[in-house]
């Protein structure tokens, strides 16, 4: 392969396709955190903690537990920043996934029927959300909303509830007063349709 061929190919690479997440400061922060830069972790915390605390609080609804989980989340980020890959997700999506997983783990520790209380009374308004901390309103976001809208309302509602509250099938069935197998069938079919809609 001649160097010229390489130049030509790369020119196509950078010329017509924007680099991944090139203007997202969180990428540089994660890279620095992976190198052991505590200052970068603090900056990431300042830029993302309100968003991630919102995620923890949404699922756990109790401030004390959400605070404990948020602490675990940033220790996990400190440890695992080098696992972030730009090709897979935006930094914010990756961080929110970690927070959601940790919060659900904590919720499960309460028992199979545990679910969140209304959160309005526990959420303090965020005084200054940073632009970099907001989930990007990407094409992916638009596509997911469009595809959820294509599901029947009941299915979309139960999938959204499962996502936002992190509750088990059992808790959903209990709350909806519907057999567990039926709820499971709604969700599985809904997810299949979602996949088909997202990847035609």
């Amino acid at each position, binding site marked *: *392969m001649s*160097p010229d061929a*390489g*130049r030509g*190919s790369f020119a196509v*690479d*950078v010329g017509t396709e924007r*680099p*991944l*997440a*090139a203007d997202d400061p969180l990428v*540089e922060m994660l*890279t*620095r955190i*992976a*190198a*052991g*830069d*505590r200052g970068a*972790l*603090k900056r990431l915390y300042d830029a993302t903690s*309100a968003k991630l*605390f*919102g995620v923890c609080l*949404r699922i756990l609804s109790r401030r004390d537990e959400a*605070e404990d989980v948020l602490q675990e989340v940033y*220790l*996990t980020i400190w*440890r*695992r920043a*080098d*696992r*972030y890959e*730009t090709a897979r*997700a935006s930094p914010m999506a990756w961080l*929110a996934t970690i927070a959601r*997983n940790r919060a*659900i783990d904590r919720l499960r520790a309460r028992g*199979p029927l545990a679910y969140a209380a209304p959160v309005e009374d526990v*959420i*303090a*308004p*965020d005084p200054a*959300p940073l632009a970099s*901390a*907001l*989930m*990007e309103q990407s094409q*992916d*976001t638009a596509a*997911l909303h469009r595809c959820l809208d294509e599901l029947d309302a009941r299915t979309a509602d139960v*999938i959204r509830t499962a*996502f936002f509250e*992190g509750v*088990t*099938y059992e808790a959903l069935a209990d709350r909806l007063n519907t057999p567990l197998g039926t709820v499971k*069938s709604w*969700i599985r079919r809904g*997810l299949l349709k979602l*996949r088909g809609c997202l990847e035609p």
Partner: protein
Amino acid sequence: MSGDPELPETEAVAAEHALGVLDMQARAAAEARMAADPAFAALVAAWRVRLAPLAGEIAPASAPAGLWGRIERGLPANDNAMLTRRLRFWQGVSGAAMALAAACLAIAVLAVNQPPTVIRPQPGVLLNASLQGDGAPMFVAAYDPDRKALIITSLARPGADPVHVHELWLIPADGKPRSLGLVEPGASHRMPMAESLAPMVEAGAALAVSIEPPGGSTKDGPSGPVAAKGILTKI
């Protein structure tokens, strides 16, 4: 029950795990399976990516003022980082990584439970570089002096150029490029620095990425064009 199509069982469980509807036992089983079965882990990862945009709807909430202090006090020193060198893949977010994270937390808890200790000073200097190509950052790098490793994050889109690879070079004060290895598009790598190279990683040294045939340059230096370049500076 109608004859509606359903997801294959394996993918259905992966999707359920990503959505978060599995109970404690099934969730633990899914985590264990992710650790043992990369194909299953990839399915979970794909579902997490599909569903992730929903998190954008969740309202932010200010974390309590003292929380950062708690986190900072809980940060383990860098030198037990051996734990983190295994397993790549972001799908490990809770998969195989669960055990790992548990270990980390155990360490964190130990750290928290011990009397206040003085955080030892960094033995070396943190460095970083933005490697620009065509005026846009193509790679972001940072040097970890504790572990003598370079972290590099590629912003290149995977698949854009399947017939070439990206090779990373360190160009120290003597001007002679040293290969640090290949960088996959869209991936992050932790590149341990050879003893002979570590002293050359200092502020002012350059990092460059060249476009090479599969397997990398066969010459003693880049054989293809330089796609991106940046200078290491102190953080």
